[in-house]
Structure formats: C-alpha cells, structure tokens
C-alpha cells in the first residue's frame, strides 16, 4: 500500500518537513509504526476481547458467528463495559497520582523541606482554606499551606462522606450523582472500587459498570485533577495572561536546546529557575553556545508556558519531530504520553534522554531522579549535563523548521474575571450577558490528544474554526491548545480571521483571543470551575446540563481522555469525541453512552470523526439549550466559510438577524 505523503500526516508544515527529513534518513516514526501495525485488531477496537481471567482470553465475534459470551458467560456488553471501566480507572489514576504529587510537594514546601520553592499563590491558598473551613485568622502562609495540603491528601484516602470539591458542584448536578450513587468518595477508593468491579465474576451488569466509569471519572475531575490544578496554582503561582510562541521554530541554532516533556510541573518549574542561573549560563558560554533555550512538549510545556511563558516546541506527535531537528541536546521527561520509541530515535542524534520521576522509568534513558529536597541543585545538575552535550551536536544534522506562531496563554477561571469585567469589577456578568444577548452562542471546551489515526491537528483546527465562525467561544487545554497555538488561533488577531461578528465584538472589546488557553490536561478542572461561575452568575441556568456549553476531544487517544470524558459527561455536559470509545462491539453499551446516560447525568457522548459534522452536532446542541433557556436569537449570521483566514473589512457581512 502506498505510504501517505507527509502532507496527509500533519496539518503542521513544520511537522511535514520533519516527516520528510525522517523519511530521507530512513528513521521510523509513530506513523511508520502505525502503518506496520495495520490492520488493527478488530476485537480490541470494538472492546469485545476480554483478558480479565485466565480461562480465556475470550473474544466475541461481532458478526454473530461463534460464541456470543465469554467462557464465564459475560455478554459483549459486560465485556465492553468492564474494559471501559478499567480504562476510566487508569485515566483517573494517572491524573490523580499527579495531583497527589503536587499535594505532597505543597506539604513539604510548607514544612520548609524543599528549599528552592516557596508558596507563590498565597491569595488562592487563603481562598481555598476558607472554602474548606480551615481557620485563616492569624495563620501564616506556611501554616495554612500545611493544613490545605493535608486536607487535600486526606481526600485521596477518604473513607467517609464525599470529596471536598463535590460541594462546589451545582445542587442539581450533585443531586443526580446522589441519585445514581456515584458522588465520589475517596479518590483512591473510587479507582480501587472500579478496578474491583471489573475482576472476574464481580460486577456483571453493564449499567453498574458504566456507573463505575463515571464515579472513577468524577474522582478525577472533582478530585485528583482539581487538586492538581488548585494546589499547583498555590505552590507555583496563579497563571496570568502572557505572550509566548509555539512550534519547532522556537528551538535556536546557536543555543543549547533543552526540552521538557510529560505532565508534572514541579521539576520543570525548578528547571526554569535553574536555567536562568549564572552557573548554567556560564556553562553555555563555555561550551560555545549563545545561551540556553528551554522549550516544552505536551502538558509539561503547558504548565511552564502558563506560569513562565516558556515557549512550546509542540504537542504529542512533535516529541519525535523535535529530535529530528538534530538540535536538541537533552529531553527531560517526567510522566505520561512519553514514547518509549524516543530511545532509539535519540540514538541517531546526540540527544540525551533523561527520565526524572520515580513513577516512570524508561529503558535506555538516563535516570536522574529529581530530588525535591534540593530542587534547584537537582535541576542545575540536569541542565549542566545537557549543556555539556552541546559539543556533541553534529551540525550537519541540524534542520530547525522556521515555523513558530505567537500566542497568548495563562487564562484561569479567576483570570477570566479580570478580562471580562475589568480589574475593578471582576465578574462573569459580561460573559453571561454576551451569551444571553446572542453575541456569543455558547462556550465549548476543545481539548485532548493527537493521534496517528488522523492527520495531526486537522480535527482540532477544523472543529475550532467551525465553532468560531458560529460565534462559539472556545476554551482549551492540552495538545489541542498546542495545535491551535501553532496555527495562530490563540491570539487576539485570530478573532479577526475566524470569529463570527458577535464573538469578534466581545474579543475586540476586551482584547481576548477567541480561543482561551487554560493549561494542561489536569486543568480541564478549570473549565469545570468556570462552568460553576457561569451558573453562579445566573441567567443561563443553575445546572451544567442547562448551559449552552459542550466538550470535544476530536483526536483523543489516552485512557486519561476516557476518564475526562466520564467526568465531563457525568457533570452534565454534552461531549463529542472523534474515534468512538472502544465499546462498539456492544450496541447496548454504545447506545447507553450516546443516549441513555443523559437521563442519569444530564450529559452524553457523541462519536463523530468528521470535525465539521462534530461542530454541527455541538452547535445543534447549544442551540437547543439556548432555546430551552429562552435566550435572545443570535445577533449575527455565522461568518461565511469563504471569509475564514481573511480579516473582515466591510460591514456587509454583518447583516443582523431579525
């Protein structure tokens, strides 16, 4: 079969260049491994292969031939739901263990055991302490931080009651959770309980298993992820809007280029500080480099972008492209989404691969475990090893693409107040008004991964542009935010080029980009808290399920995306994913996820690979919510497709409706 050309693999010209270069040098990247893996196993794709006990493995033939239950008698619905529950638990575990790490770091910092860190978000700390009923009067920042960290850690092992953040959820959302029996108790408990339900012969009722998926997901969104976000803001500082750049063009020819890749912000934050030290800069100069360029891949990139403006080298599939530039001295990885294939690719260059987390080791990487009791020293040690590697760079192999786009990032639930209401009257009122008046149709979170199954970034960009032209405000995290950052959609100017007239008016008035970068994938919890604020402000319903909002993950691939999907849908939000969840071998489970679940939780999934069709589904959903709320009709017709990418110059396109 012919190998697709690079332009069919990625929408990003920098990526295409690197794909061509890799092909010329006979390097095998994820796309080549994907081709070699064809055809993908149909039983796995459909979710009807069960390996949960050793009587099997069992497979159900989806065409009705042969056995239609597993050896234990499990139906295709039980098998698919059980497999999905495991995935939801794994995704929840990943985000939550990340959150636990941040809570432990905050605790150690409060106790003065992590020189190099100080608590940079004291205002947020006090607010959270008050929310959690921790007395703040007379307490020092450190004393409060210790109590807040301990309270957060308690939620991981909580045996009674529900997670602290559950009280943030609107009453109607909580009532649905209680009715379904899924209000999340301890974070670890929900993950363990869900895994238990999937053990051979434990839960054998598809609906009960899906409730476990939801509960494990809620423990992530309203537990692990929310703790990760809130406590990261307390420890490392609340992000504020800032300007930076994204794409491989941020790497510099005459600089030592060091990449951070993964998800946790703690080490990378120390790397940022250490990268500015005289010791490291002197070492760069001694090595003959003009300086040090730190840049990021995936969500570690988003974390250091949000708080420090460190530029982004790329999203998931860029982890290999970055090495193909030949200009990377070192890639420092922490946890999640890191390809083990980087080992062999790095060997073709001089790049040092360094793993740092006790939670994730990699065959063939050098492991320098990050010691938080001497964070800055630890970070310097890592950076100096990278600087020392600069002399090994083979200049004949260096090909840095020129592409990079400016972007604005650093938006938070609290920060949006400043922008929308102005610093002196922070409020969600202007946003709610813009939605009720029909300037903004609604708000959609476009988030999630890259996947080799489709052209890189294509679904993110097509979906986002289609939403923008229909006056939908887009909020983003993760690899989706990076996709839009590379394409220039995270700038105020993007409103001129892509937004409908109503959205453009709002963006112009307050200087906002039409797509707001809200952080890493655990920061999807910021989007939950923003929805809380929209409900609290009033006028658009007091339930997530009433709001003209939706979620989308058009290029999802990780188990984490499944956990996210369940907490978003479980919180009442309609969510469109690209590739279907691996349950299509069971019509019962597929139908529940895309229909029946709405009755229980107010939200539901839709599976739609075509991004334009996905946008249509979302717009139809938002319009139905607007109608139910009796909001004003939209002020403007959607922006014509032909005008996308060109600044709107005349007012003829501004034909007001009605």
């Amino acid at each position, binding site marked *: 079969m012919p190998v697709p050309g690079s332009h069919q693999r990625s929408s990003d010209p920098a990526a295409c260049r690197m794909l061509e270069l890799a092909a010329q040098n006979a390097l095998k990247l994820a796309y080549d491994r994907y081709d070699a893996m064809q*055809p993908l*196993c*149909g*039983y796995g*794709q*459909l979710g009807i292969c069960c390996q949960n006990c050793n009587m099997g493995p069992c*497979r159900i*033939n*989806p*065409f*009705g*031939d*042969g056995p239609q239950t597993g050896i234990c008698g499990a139906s295709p619905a039980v098998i698919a739901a059980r497999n999905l529950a495991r995935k939801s638990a794994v995704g929840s575990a990943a985000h939550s263990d990340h959150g636990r790490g941040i809570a432990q770091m905050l605790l150690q910092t409060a106790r003065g055991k992590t020189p190099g860190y100080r608590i940079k978000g004291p205002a947020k700390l006090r607010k959270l302490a008050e929310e959690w009923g921790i007395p703040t009067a007379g307490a020092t920042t450190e004393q409060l931080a210790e109590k807040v960290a301990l309270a957060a850690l308690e939620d991981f092992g909580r045996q009674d009651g529900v997670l602290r953040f559950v009280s943030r959820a609107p009453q109607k959302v909580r009532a649905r959770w209680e009715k379904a029996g899924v209000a999340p108790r301890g974070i670890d408990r929900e993950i363990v309980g869900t895994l238990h339900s999937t053990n051979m012969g434990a839960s054998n009722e598809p609906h009960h298993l899906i409730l476990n998926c939801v509960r494990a997901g809620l423990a992530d969104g309203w537990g692990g992820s929310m703790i990760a976000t809130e406590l990261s803001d307390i420890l490392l500082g609340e992000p504020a809007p800032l300007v930076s750049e994204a794409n491989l063009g941020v790497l510099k020819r005459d600089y030592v280029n060091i990449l951070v890749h993964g998800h946790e912000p703690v080490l990378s934050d120390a790397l940022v500080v250490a990268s500015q030290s005289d010791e490291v800069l002197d070492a760069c100069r001694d090595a003959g480099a003009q300086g040090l360029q730190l840049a990021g891949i995936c969500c570690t990139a988003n974390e250091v972008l949000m708080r420090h403006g460190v530029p982004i080298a790329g999203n998931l599939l860029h982890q290999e492209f970055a090495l193909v530039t030949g200009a990377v001295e070192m890639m420092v990885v922490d946890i999640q989404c890191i390809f083990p294939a980087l080992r062999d690719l790095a060997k073709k260059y001089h790049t040092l691969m360094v793993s740092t987390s006790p939670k994730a080791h990699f065959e063939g990487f050098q492991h320098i475990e990050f010691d938080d009791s001497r964070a800055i020293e630890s970070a310097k040690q890592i950076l100096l090893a990278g600087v020392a590697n600069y002399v090994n760079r083979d200049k004949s192999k260096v090909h840095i693409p020129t592409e990079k786009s400016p972007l604005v990032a650093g938006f938070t639930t609290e920060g949006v107040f400043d922008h929308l209401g102005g610093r002196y009257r922070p409020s969600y009122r202007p946003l709610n008004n813009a939605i009720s008046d029909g300037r903004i149709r609604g708000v959609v979170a476009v988030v999630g991964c890259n996947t080799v199954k489709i052209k890189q970034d294509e679904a993110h960009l097509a979906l986002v542009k289609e939403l923008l032209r229909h006056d939908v405000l887009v909020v983003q995290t993760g690899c989706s935010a990076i996709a839009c950052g590379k394409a220039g959609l995270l700038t105020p100017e993007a409103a001129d080029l892509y937004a409908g007239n109503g959205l453009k008016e709002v963006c112009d008035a307050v200087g906002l980009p039409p797509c707001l970068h809200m952080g890493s994938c655990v920061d999807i919890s910021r989007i939950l808290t923003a929805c809380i604020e929209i409900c609290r402000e009033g006028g658009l319903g007091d339930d997530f399920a009433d709001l003209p909002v939706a979620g989308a993950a058009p290029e999802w691939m990780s188990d984490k995306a499944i956990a996210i999907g369940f907490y978003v849908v479980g919180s009442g939000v309609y969510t469109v994913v690209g590739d*279907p969840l691996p349950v*299509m*071998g069971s*019509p019962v489970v597929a139908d529940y996820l895309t229909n029946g679940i709405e009755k229980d939780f107010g939200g539901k999934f839709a599976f739609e690979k075509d991004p334009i069709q996905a946008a249509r589904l979302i717009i139809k959903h938002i319009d139905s919510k607007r109608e139910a709320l009796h909001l004003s009709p939209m002020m403007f017709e959607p922006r014509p497709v032909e005008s996308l990418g060109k600044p709107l110059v005349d007012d003829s396109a501004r034909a007001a409706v009605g």
Partner: protein
Amino acid sequence: MKRMLVIRIKRCLACKSCELGCAIAHSESGELFGAILEQPASRSRVRVAGDAGFAMPLQCRQCETAPCMGVCPTKALNRSGVDDPIVLDHGLCIGCTWCVMACPFGVISLDEQRRAIVKCDQCFDLVQRGRLPACVTACPSGALTFQTSDDVSREKREACLVEFRRAAGQPGEAV
C-alpha cells in the same frame, strides 16, 4: 498461475483476526464499524479450527476437481478460468446444501440469514485489483500467505536442502 492460500500452521495464534477481516471484506460497507451493524450480518468464509495448543485457519482449497462443483445441481458454483477460484452465483443457488455434504474440509456452510451457501472466493475482486485476500492482510503473525504452488514447493525444497546439508555436515544457507 493459480495462487492459493497457504497456511503456516506453527504461526497461527488462533487470534481469529482472519475471521474478522473476511467478514469485513464481504460486507456492504467494507469497514469494521459499519460492517458490524449490517443486517443480514456479513459472514466469515474462514474459520479458525483446532483445540488447546493447536489451531489453524480453514477455508476453501479451491480444489482442482472440486466435489462441490460436481454435485451442484444448478451450476451455481463455478470458476471462470482454470486459475480462478470457485465462486457462487447467488441467483442460481437453491440452498440444497449438497456442496456442504460433498466438501471434504467442511468449509462450505449455509448462511442462515441469506438462505444460501457461503464459501471462500479468495477475495477475487481484491486480487484483481492487485491486493491480497483479506484473511492474509488481516493475519498479524504471518500464518496466511497467498502464493502459487510452485512457490510453495520451491520453499519446501530449499528447507529440505538445509536439512540435508546439515545431516551431511555441510551447514549452509538455503539458496
């Protein structure tokens, strides 16, 4: 020259991917997610047979002197040329199942939903377009190949040669 589905028994892991690939190739939509929703359901023409520790895919051998063709009273089973597979003319099949009884390998069956027999057609339309039969493409372990009998005998001779050389104390590579 006539090509045949060659089974490398030691490589078969009984994953049944060939069964899925076959059913998808013979569906209306031609892709997994669409195929599983079709009614009547698409039928696989290959079946993985065996028991603990032994498995192999079985499908029509496209016999030279095919008993199924011989017994078919309506001439619904036919091959267009000597190298071509035996295919079923649905319009002519009366579902008498004589061919099911005549087949020495048990690889012809009655499709209960379509009320007609089903058998492997070696994906003749794919092959005409230069592709391989779907079961071969679907097999992840290389247990199925599509080769001429000449190729198969040559490979076997080469394998023999290696054994003979080793026995004669002259280890060497096959030609």
